């Protein structure tokens, strides 16, 4: 006999019959609806259907990606050094935590806010920052830095300019107000992101091991508090919205984009951290992010193996007449759920009073393992908590290699029939690449972000990685962080592209003098129901997992964003990677900028003969083809450890990773020091008879240019030789204003200040607003 139905909802509109059309409108599949009825042993109410629809969306349940994510290395038995550092592993809590020694740890995670940003760029990006910051302080950590990873269509489009401006100012608005420095990031412009920009935001926080908090509801009778902003109708069903493809009608979804209040969040951070410092006061805590009150109650109950009962009348409300569906699904920002030790209610109330915030006692922990929601005393939802979380459906989607790969992967520069470049082509090639927004200086972006607040930024944005000094009690530690992902490589070879994202990110850290510790990822892909998209997702996850395993870097958390499509098709697969590294000694901090005239430039790594997937091929020949650049994990590992050894030995003045644009772009960027502009004289005649376009602009992996004092050349070459890394002397840094290139057969000369001007102001010139100062 089925369970008896719930009483009528106080709002008659919620008592309408649940028709198949209504189920479909919630994005719930017929078979999922049957499963819901099975869990409840009756028909769901409309409130309950809404609750299931958001909790079973991709955003909350990872229903299409969960089986793949299991391939990520999150823990290892007989833990190696890095895996032994994992204190909270991926998927366990709101963010992963790793040990950084002496009883201290860092919590960090990256999360997307792509769809909200496409519709309402300012608020979408701003609340993306707010959400990830809450994920971090929920863990008990003091947030200390932000980074972000952005993707847009070609910047020539006025629509893209509007989105770009809105997203950057939204991130700036929220992060700056919180007083968190944005210390690193990456921005790419590519047609595939037109109409579906990517906005991935990362936050990192620090805490002592004994400060780690969990999102768990335990202890029958313990009171459940709601703290922070009042609930309104904004962001209604945002999680479900984020799991639909963008369409023309998406703009009618505007109420699904939340509005952020960074001031409220700042108060919430301070009040929550103060509350969590009180021994034994907080039993569990979780932010109300996607799916708001719904997600926080059922997840804490499910993790704690307990139940939760709440009364909606006690929930602070911004608007009158909100029904249970609206309150449960609202994604109003800056709210947290806290489970407090019974009998200590007054203590939490006093702390929130000090910060002029609400702390509302909305319910209590039960032993029923059910999430029970009441309004005016009437039960409006009564659901087994675990059915919303652990028992959410999981699908293994069909995977099919995209047809285009058969053509693109066969393309090589040798078989292409494209003529090699000449001296004039080399000259204009470098000029064009440096001015392309993907390669050009991102000063226009990061000067809008406060990157110095908290007075700990050691390396500001603009070098390979951001470096921050952490003040921990009476000691100091230095960490580095970088983001990476070249979606073009992932489009041309999903597996290898993902491997490259990972190894390049680590290479950036090593160039800054850091040892990589752990990784967080944001998987941005198209609709997984299309087998070609699922193939890309699957292969990229495999690539990241292999690289992480090989380098012994655990994945400590992340986010999946699917359905990134616009009417023109799916985005390039973009598994954004962010790695945190540890710098043993402040003296090891290294930047990409040469320091003195007379230094010698040396290339570590080879000079393969390829151009596939390069910016050069796209910009000069209008081609997005070929295979992703070669990458060899073993060589990469040798290269990175060799560089780190040299940095620790104190013989490296500057180190810069070769990435988009290749060798010449990297060298030019090294000359653009914030202190002054240098010249250089390059003699590349030592390189054999390769193609000049491939040599100068190819993007083969596993390469770094270092700048060293002349008397250190011997040390570098012999260390490289011992490690089996090729090393080639490229030339010398000069006091002159010219960059002079002489290779066997081509020669070119540039004015470095002119190159720098083009590189530095390229984005600013496009984004300048008539009549306004820059």
């Amino acid at each position, binding site marked *: 006999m089925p369970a008896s139905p719930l009483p009528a909802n106080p709002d008659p509109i919620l008592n309408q019959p649940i028709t198949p059309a209504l189920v479909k409108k919630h994005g719930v599949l017929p078979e999922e609806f049957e499963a819901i009825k099975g869990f409840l042993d009756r028909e769901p109410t409309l409130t309950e259907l809404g609750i299931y629809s958001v909790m079973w969306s991709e955003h909350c349940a990872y229903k299409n990606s969960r089986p793949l994510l299991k391939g990520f290395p999150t823990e290892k038995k007989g833990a190696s050094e890095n895996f032994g550092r994992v204190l909270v592993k991926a998927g366990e809590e709101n963010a992963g935590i790793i040990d950084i020694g002496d009883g201290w740890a860092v919590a960090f995670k990256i999360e997307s806010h792509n769809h909200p940003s496409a519709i309402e760029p300012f608020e979408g990006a701003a609340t993306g920052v707010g959400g990830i910051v809450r994920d971090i302080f929920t863990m008990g950590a003091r947030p200390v830095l932000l980074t972000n990873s952005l993707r847009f269509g070609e910047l020539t489009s006025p629509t893209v300019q509007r989105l770009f401006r809105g997203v950057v100012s939204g991130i700036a608005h929220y992060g700056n107000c*919180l*007083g968190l420095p944005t210390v690193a990031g990456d921005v790419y412009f590519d047609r595939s992101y037109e109409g579906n920009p990517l906005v991935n935001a990362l936050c990192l926080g620090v805490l002592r091991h004994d400060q780690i908090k969990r999102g768990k509801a335990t202890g029958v009778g313990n009171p459940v508090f709601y703290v922070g902003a009042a609930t309104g109708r904004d962001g209604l069903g945002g999680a479900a919205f984020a799991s639909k493809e963008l369409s023309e009608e998406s703009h009618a979804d505007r109420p699904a984009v939340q509005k952020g209040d960074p*001031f409220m969040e*700042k108060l919430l951070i301070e009040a929550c951290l103060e509350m969590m410092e009180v021994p034994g006061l907080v039993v569990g805590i979780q932010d109300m992010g996607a799916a708001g009150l719904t997600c926080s109650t059922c997840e804490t109950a499910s993790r704690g193996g307990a139940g939760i009962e709440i009364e909606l009348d006690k929930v602070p409300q911004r608007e009158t007449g909100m029904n249970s569906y609206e309150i449960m699904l609202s994604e109003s920002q800056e709210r947290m759920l806290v489970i407090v030790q019974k009998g200590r209610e007054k203590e939490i109330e006093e702390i929130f009073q000090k910060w002029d915030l609400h702390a509302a006692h909305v319910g209590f922990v039960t032993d029923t393992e059910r999430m029970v929601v009441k309004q005016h005393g009437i039960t409006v939802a009564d659901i087994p908590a675990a059915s919303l979380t652990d028992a959410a459906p999981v699908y293994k989607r069909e995977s099919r290699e995209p047809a285009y790969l058969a053509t693109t992967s066969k393309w090589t520069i040798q078989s292409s029939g494209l003529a090699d470049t000449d001296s004039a082509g080399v000259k204009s090639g470098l000029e064009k690449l440096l001015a392309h927004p993907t390669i050009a200086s991102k000063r226009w972006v990061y*000067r*809008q972000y406060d990157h110095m607040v908290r007075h*700990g930024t050691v390396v500001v944005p603009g070098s390979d990685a951001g470096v921050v000094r952490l003040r921990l009690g009476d000691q100091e530690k230095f960490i580095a962080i970088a983001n990476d992902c070249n979606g073009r490589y992932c489009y041309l070879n999903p597996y290898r592209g993902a491997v490259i994202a990972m190894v390049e990110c680590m290479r950036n850290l090593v160039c800054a003098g850091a040892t990589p510790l752990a990784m967080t990822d944001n998987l941005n892909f198209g609709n997984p129901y299309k087998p070609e998209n699922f193939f890309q997702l699957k292969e990229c996850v495999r690539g990241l997992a292999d690289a992480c395993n090989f380098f012994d870097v655990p994945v400590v958390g992340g986010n999946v964003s699917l359905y990134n499509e616009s009417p023109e098709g799916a985005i390039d697969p973009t598994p954004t990677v962010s790695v945190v590294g540890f710098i043993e000694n402040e003296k090891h901090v290294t930047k990409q900028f040469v320091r003195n005239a007379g230094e010698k430039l040396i290339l570590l790594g080879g000079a393969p003969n390829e151009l596939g997937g390069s910016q050069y091929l796209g910009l000069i020949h209008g081609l997005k083809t070929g295979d992703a650049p070669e990458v060899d994990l073993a060589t990469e590992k040798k290269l990175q450890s060799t560089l780190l050894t040299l940095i620790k030995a104190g013989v490296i003045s500057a180190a810069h990773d070769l990435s988009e644009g290749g060798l010449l772009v990297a060298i030019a960027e090294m000359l653009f020091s914030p202190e002054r502009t240098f010249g250089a004289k390059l003699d590349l005649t030592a390189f054999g008879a390769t193609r000049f376009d491939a040599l100068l602009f190819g993007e083969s992996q596993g390469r770094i240019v270092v700048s060293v004092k002349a008397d250190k050349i011997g040390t570098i070459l012999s260390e490289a030789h011992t490690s089996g890394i090729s090393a080639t002397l490229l030339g010398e840094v000069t006091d002159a204003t010219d960059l002079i290139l002489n290779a066997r057969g081509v020669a070119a000369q540039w004015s470095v200040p002119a190159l720098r001007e083009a590189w530095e102001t390229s984005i600013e010139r496009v984004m300048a607003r008539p009549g306004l100062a820059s």
Partner: protein
Amino acid sequence: MNIGVLQFPGSNCDQDAFHLFANGLGLPTRYIWHKDTTLGDVDLVIVPGGFAYGDYLRCGAIARFSPVMKAVAAYADKGGLVYGICNGFQILCEAGLLPGALIRNSSLEYRCVMCDLTVEASTPSFSPSVLGPTVKLPIGHGEGNYRIDEAGLARLEANKQILLRYQSNPNGSLSDIAGIRNEKGNVFGMMPHPDRAFERFHQSRDGLAVSRAVLATKFPELLAKTA
């Protein structure tokens, strides 16, 4: 000597200012809560940077009404030394402790950049002879565009109240003004951040000398000691 750093809801450079004075200059430093109505024993009050009360209305417009600002006004009135940095400068202007106002940057964008600043001969200690002709300090603000009427500007010039001027104006400030003091010479305000220019790894460490110069207007022995 005791340093007090105000804390408003939304202050976010309070810790930066604290460390500048406590660790950079080695002076006893403590926080003062915005709901406090007295300042206690204090020789310098710092009004730090941030977004006090969110600054949604107009920067400093709400903070000036907080209980602690009444105490700061009374303290300044009696000749106490007050030092506003960034949002603190904005609050002091709103509170009428410093002349003029700060509006949105002419770019309508937030700016976080390093600035070269010309030091003006304002007081015996805040002068090129002590600090050198220029200092380097970062800025980080969206509303640092200093405005004052013509007569007010003339008074600032005549009384040597201008402390620092931007060499390359980042925000549209009138007459490139980056920082000023009141006529009496005990209330200082500036948009640039000395509290981000004092650690060994910072791009500049001029924040130490600039802050010492502010303190030395009242405590000249400080200058002699560190010179």
